């Protein structure tokens, strides 16, 4: 495990996330403030800030906790708000199945939105080669580590400074700008840009859905539209690729 931290890809993972870290930190800071302002005790806020590691589910749950909602309602809310991670886990599955179950759960737990996005940007295809697998693990570890430190560290700072930083300053918008920058870096093909456009429009149109389900609807709509557009576009432009039908299913 310790050799993972010395692997050169660990540093690459850190380096890729570092420019976004201030945005994550601003977001974490405001989440820390919001947890205290909506009435969690110090212990509860610290525990949530350290353990839950999912900003949108924290922000959705805090008002429910304050209102005394039943536990199952809060947990169901957290699950639904996190549903996009279920989609991500389907994507990441072939990258982690060589690990044992505990290690896979740890990898999953620590892979938040940005680590998922940056990891799949660096490694578009899974591998079975042990050296390459090691690189991927090290990259993900470095990426998640700095993400965790900036999110949790800034959440704790926000909890400590809750009465000094008004939410009305809107510092959390830096988090949105960070994601905007990453989104621009991903928009390298026309279909990816279409995906962003469709998802953005669908998320606004479906905003009235409860439990942030608009995000799931938006991802589904964007993927479906892109798959439909893919065939005609490929027929017109791309060179024929070798068929991949005989892939070694489940070997990874």
């Amino acid at each position: 495990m310790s050799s993972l931290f010395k692997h050169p890809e660990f540093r690459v993972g850190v380096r890729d996330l570092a420019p976004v870290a201030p945005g994550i930190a601003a977001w974490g800071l405001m989440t820390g403030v919001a947890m205290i302002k909506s009435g969690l005790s110090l212990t509860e806020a610290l525990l949530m800030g350290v353990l839950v590691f999912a900003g949108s589910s924290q922000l959705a749950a805090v008002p429910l906790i304050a209102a005394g909602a039943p536990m199952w309602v809060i947990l169901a809310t957290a699950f639904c708000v996190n549903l996009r991670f279920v989609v991500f886990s389907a994507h990441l599955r072939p990258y982690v199945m060589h690990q044992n179950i505990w290690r896979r759960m740890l990898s999953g737990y620590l892979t938040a939105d940005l680590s998922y996005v940056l990891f799949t940007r660096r490694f578009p295809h899974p591998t079975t080669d042990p050296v390459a697998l090691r690189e991927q693990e090290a990259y993900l570890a470095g990426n998640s580590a700095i993400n965790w430190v900036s999110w949790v560290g800034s959440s704790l700072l926000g909890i400590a400074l809750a009465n000094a930083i008004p939410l009305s300053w809107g510092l959390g918008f830096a988090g949105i700008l960070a994601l905007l920058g990453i989104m621009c870096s991903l928009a390298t093909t026309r279909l990816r840009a279409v995906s962003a456009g469709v998802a953005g429009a669908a998320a606004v149109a479906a905003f009235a859905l409860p439990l942030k389900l608009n995000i799931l609807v938006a991802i589904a709509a964007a993927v479906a539209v892109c798959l439909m557009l893919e065939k005609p576009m490929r027929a017109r432009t791309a060179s024929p690729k070798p068929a991949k039908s005989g892939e070694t299913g489940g070997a990874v």
Partner: protein
Amino acid sequence: MSKTDLWTVATIIGMALMTVITRSFFFLSSKPWTLPAWAQRGLHYAPIAALAAVIVPEMVMSQGQLIASWKDARLFAVVAGTAWYYWRHGVLGTILAGMAVYLPLHMGLGW
């Protein structure tokens, strides 16, 4: 500040479990299976879609409605951030340029 409630502590631990379960949902079973090829291709469009789905409503909506006025600091910040990105290709610069536009408009003019 309110008192710590054991029930709430249990809820928070449950939420952490929800994070684990959702993020490793398809890692849990080790039965060999693979997604059909179309689904694998489709998932390549998911990362950018997820980002857009999270950020676009935060840019153009408030209180569940599309904003009606152009006097909104967020719009100018998004333009500045995007312009920076395509000029210099840095995410840190995107954040800083966007906030340099956002904070004066939001805190100074109340947009």
